[in-house]
């Protein structure tokens, strides 16, 4: 379950059009959320409050071996955050939980930018997208967060600042005055996202760790060789380099991510491949959303040097509240209970249409014309053409008709599936994960209950060292429950 402040930070990034999915840090986010989800270790109660549109606060109490607490304050100057933020009663469960990540192909994001910059002029009349105007008007925005733990008196502070449309700066600090421990560290992130590359520079005063990571989106345009005409797949390649200056410990890895959809069912798939050349560690993950209610992930780890291998398996099952679930078509008709949510969906829809147009533009002008049935403005263009030209166009349309129909069909399948998941109202989710080498089973249940967000989980260890396969449960450290309430 996402911490409330993390939720706000995420909303902040969404509002400022910062795509954290394109950071190398999150290249394996899907498999991580399914395999390495965190299990609450104690009883934790968290109540959050939106005091104004710009300030938020959280009080947290944790009952571990003793009672600890923390107070968090957050300030942000970004506009419109209150429109997308939900309280714990109205929030969609899939927004409050880390789950399968739908990776938007980079060109869909890029194109919207490109459109605003250079090529948009000719299409400006086509689509009047309110989103595009927001891109034009970049406003530097920032977010400040401070958290004080007691009684241990540890202070955490974070500042996120958008410097330009392409850069974001993050500074995190931790300071502790408790005796003996010298915990005064800060970490600095500088992220730059332009073109198809997302670059990050990180420096942490802890151990003098400095790092550089880059993610490059290979598919900059819709594929020309794919048999599937509507192409929503994306391929990204990234690498990271780390070096701690004080102890000279190096670290590096390189990764590849491929996201696509099943052509017939429209179900999304994510494949990642990670290689650590320094330690010869290779891992590959395969995540698939088999139905709108279930996701499965497998991960295979292998070390080239030591031939050590590990197989992990994770899955999640969503339980929907059938009575209140939305039909896929309900987005268009705005009949959803959550009106504002539907609005966002429409925005997304229009964005996709927008990108669709650019796709067609890149194919050929004929293709553009051929989509007259679906896009109205192009009908107007047709009027100006002569009869012979119209005839020619009709021929072309006829030639590509079958594939165009297929394209629409594929597109609708994929989008339907995605929308189905996004608009379904889920009440709870079960997450299971196991690993062959660790011989453990992690179980996590998360759900909504009377306006509270609950999260409870445990980890069972099947350790052979403890004579036999008797499950050794250590509830003191491995079991916990989180209760979250926000208004």
């Amino acid at each position, binding site marked *: 379950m996402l911490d409330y402040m993390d939720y706000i930070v995420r909303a902040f990034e969404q509002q400022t059009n910062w795509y954290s999915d394109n950071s190398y840090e999150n290249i394996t986010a899907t498999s991580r959320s399914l395999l390495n989800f965190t299990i609450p270790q104690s009883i934790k109660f968290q109540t959050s409050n939106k005091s104004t549109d710009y300030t938020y606060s959280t009080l947290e109490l944790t009952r571990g071996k003793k009672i600890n607490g923390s107070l968090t304050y957050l300030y942000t100057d970004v506009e419109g955050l209150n429109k997308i933020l939900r309280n714990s009663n109205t929030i969609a469960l899939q927004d409050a939980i880390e789950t399968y990540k739908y990776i938007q192909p980079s060109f869909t994001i890029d194109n919207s930018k490109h459109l605003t910059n250079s090529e948009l002029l000719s299409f400006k009349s086509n689509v009047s997208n309110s989103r595009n105007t927001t891109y034009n008007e970049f406003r530097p925005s920032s977010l400040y967060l401070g958290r004080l733990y007691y009684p241990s008196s540890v202070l955490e502070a974070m500042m996120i600042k958008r410097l330009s449309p392409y850069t974001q700066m993050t500074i*995190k600090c931790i300071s502790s005055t408790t005796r003996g421990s010298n915990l005064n*560290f800060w*970490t600095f992130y500088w992220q730059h996202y332009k073109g198809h590359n997302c670059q990050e520079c990180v420096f942490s005063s802890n151990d003098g760790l400095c790092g550089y990571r880059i993610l490059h989106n290979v598919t900059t345009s819709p594929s020309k060789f794919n048999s599937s005409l509507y192409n929503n797949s994306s391929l990204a390649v990234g690498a990271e380099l780390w070096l701690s200056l004080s102890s000279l410990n190096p*670290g590096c*890895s390189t990764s590849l991510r491929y996201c696509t959809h099943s052509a017939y069912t429209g179900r999304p798939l994510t494949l990642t491949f990670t290689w650590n050349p320094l330690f010869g560690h290779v891992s590959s993950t395969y995540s698939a959303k088999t139905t709108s209610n279930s996701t499965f992930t497998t991960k295979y780890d292998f*070390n080239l040097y030591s031939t050590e291998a590990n197989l992990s398996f994770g899955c999640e099952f969503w339980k929907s509240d059938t009575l209140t679930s939305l039909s896929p078509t309900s987005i268009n008709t705005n009949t959803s209970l959550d009106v504002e949510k539907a609005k966002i969906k429409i925005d997304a829809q229009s964005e996709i249409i927008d990108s669709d147009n650019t796709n067609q533009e890149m194919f050929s002008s004929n293709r553009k014309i051929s989509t007259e049935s679906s896009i109205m403005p192009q009908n107007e263009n047709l009027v100006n053409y002569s009869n012979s030209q119209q005839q020619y166009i009709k021929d072309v349309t006829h030639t590509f008709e079958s594939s165009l129909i297929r394209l629409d069909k594929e597109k609708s399948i994929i989008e339907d599936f995605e929308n189905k998941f996004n608009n379904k109202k889920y009440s709870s989710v079960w997450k299971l994960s196991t690993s062959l080498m660790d011989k453990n089973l992690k179980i996590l249940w998360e759900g909504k209950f009377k306006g509270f967000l609950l999260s409870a989980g445990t980890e069972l260890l099947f350790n052979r060292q403890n004579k036999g396969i008797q499950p050794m449960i250590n509830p003191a450290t491995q079991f916990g429950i989180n209760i979250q309430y926000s208004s």
Partner: protein
Amino acid sequence: MSFKFNENLFKDEDFNEKIKQKLTNLLTKSLVKDDIPKSNSIYYDVTSSLNNSNSIGSSTSAVTTATTANNVIRSSTDKYSNFTTLNNNAGLFKTSKVRNSSTIISTGTNSVNKSLSNSNKISNFLKDEIKITKVDFPMIPQVEILDMDITTEPRSLIKAIGNISCCNAFIQLETVIESNLLMTTLQMSPSFITPRLIDNNSFKVPITMTFSRIKLEAITNVFMRNHGISISFNDVSLDFKFDCSIKILQNTIEKKLKNSIYSIFKEVLPTAIFNTSQHWLNPNKFNQNNTNSSNNNSNSNNNKSKDEILTEINKIVLDENDLQEISIENMSKLASIIKSRYTLSLHGTNPLISNSYPNNFINFNGCLERQNLYRFISAMPSLQNFYHGSKSNNKRNFIANTNETNATRSNSIGYRVTESHHIKGNKIRCTTNNEKENYLPQDVLDTGNFELNDIINIQNKLYERNYHNSNHINNDTNSNVQPRNRVIRLNKLLKSKKNKKLKEETKEKINVTAGSESTIYTRENNQEEFFESKLLSETKEMNKFVDSLLTNTVNNGTNSEKPSDSSLSSPTISKSIGFVGLNSYNSLWGYNNNINNSIIITL
């Protein structure tokens, strides 16, 4: 004087196996003790202090330092047996059970660790227990005592200089280390400020480290005090060839190892040996002493962290189980040394005596190595000697001489009173033999030729001796205490005023030099009067005098029956007054008219 370890033991394959097992146990023991799930670093007391950085080299070298520490300790056992040999020299047989195999340091829990773990400076890089795979000691370690000084004051202190050498040893160990130290570092740091790394998994690497051609030579100073042995290493040369399966780390580890050897020899080993000796010599006082020593250590070091380290070191105790055996060869060697050496003290060198007092470690007080010393002790100062030396009467009846009987004698037949009546519960060696009892010859009594002052003198001497002996037996640890000027309680025995006056006189006489003793000599043979003059001259000429005494007793021996060895008595030496007793007499003294000589020398 050099000692060799039991050769067969080293030839035996079991030896290597045993050491292998012991070292493995030791190294894993600390792992088990400190192993708290996740995020807790495992370190060895000593090495954690030596390695402050997180680099690959240093961390792995921590492992190796620990093992070399053992390695060194292994060779330090040589020293340990050296101590036992010292003990054996002093005639302590029973307690000196030392096997010359490996000894083990048991490390206490590491509190330093916990304090440091907060500052993220220690990473958990050890992933498996340390196994010793091969051990080989082809050459027998040698211990050589270059010099030994036991005449120093206070007497309970023994100083010695020893040379220890061991060469061509071979040790190989294996363990598994975590090579991705960046991961271990980041795991320790708070998650809020730690950037997330994508593929930062652990990579465990088995590592094999080989120490070959280990050569150790050390000159040591050895001090033995009442309840502990302390060693200081003066000139240590330890050389070994180091080979690591990960070649990148080899140089770094080796460098770190050589750096840490210094502190092992300077701090770890001496403390370990001292603690063990304390534990071993007087287990009752161990705890107390341990705290004392730790206090001393902490006082001497103002640095806090060093305090902690030192207290950690203080917990190091050599494994007692390893001290259960001893090389037979060495034991027989020591036995022969002891047999060949009768000291002036003689008290304590007798195996039988030390058997009766197994914990008596101070028995070698003031022992001097003299060959043929038994000749000197063959005579004891006693009333018999005195009066028969001066007057060679041949009467069969004698009356026991105590002061009491002196005052109230009524019987013609004397009864003997041993000195044990004077000091309750104490054995008095000079009188345990019936034949050496302190009788006053009857003819002396009859003729009334005795003088009370002489009798009192003699009795006082005997009393003095026995009193101090008993003190040694009862209070080992108080042997350093200077005996106070003893006033002999004659009041009980001599109740008349006259005797009280005499007592004051005797008091003086205890303290006087040979001058007062000379009165005794005047009653003796002319021949011995010749010696008397020598005695009076200088105490520095003792040796010469003793030689001349030897000739004297030999001369006397021609006239009388020579005493058999079995009848030898052992006069004892008190703290303040040293005696060289010279007695030769016949066992059938009371009935024969043999010439008896007695010389009393006051040093």
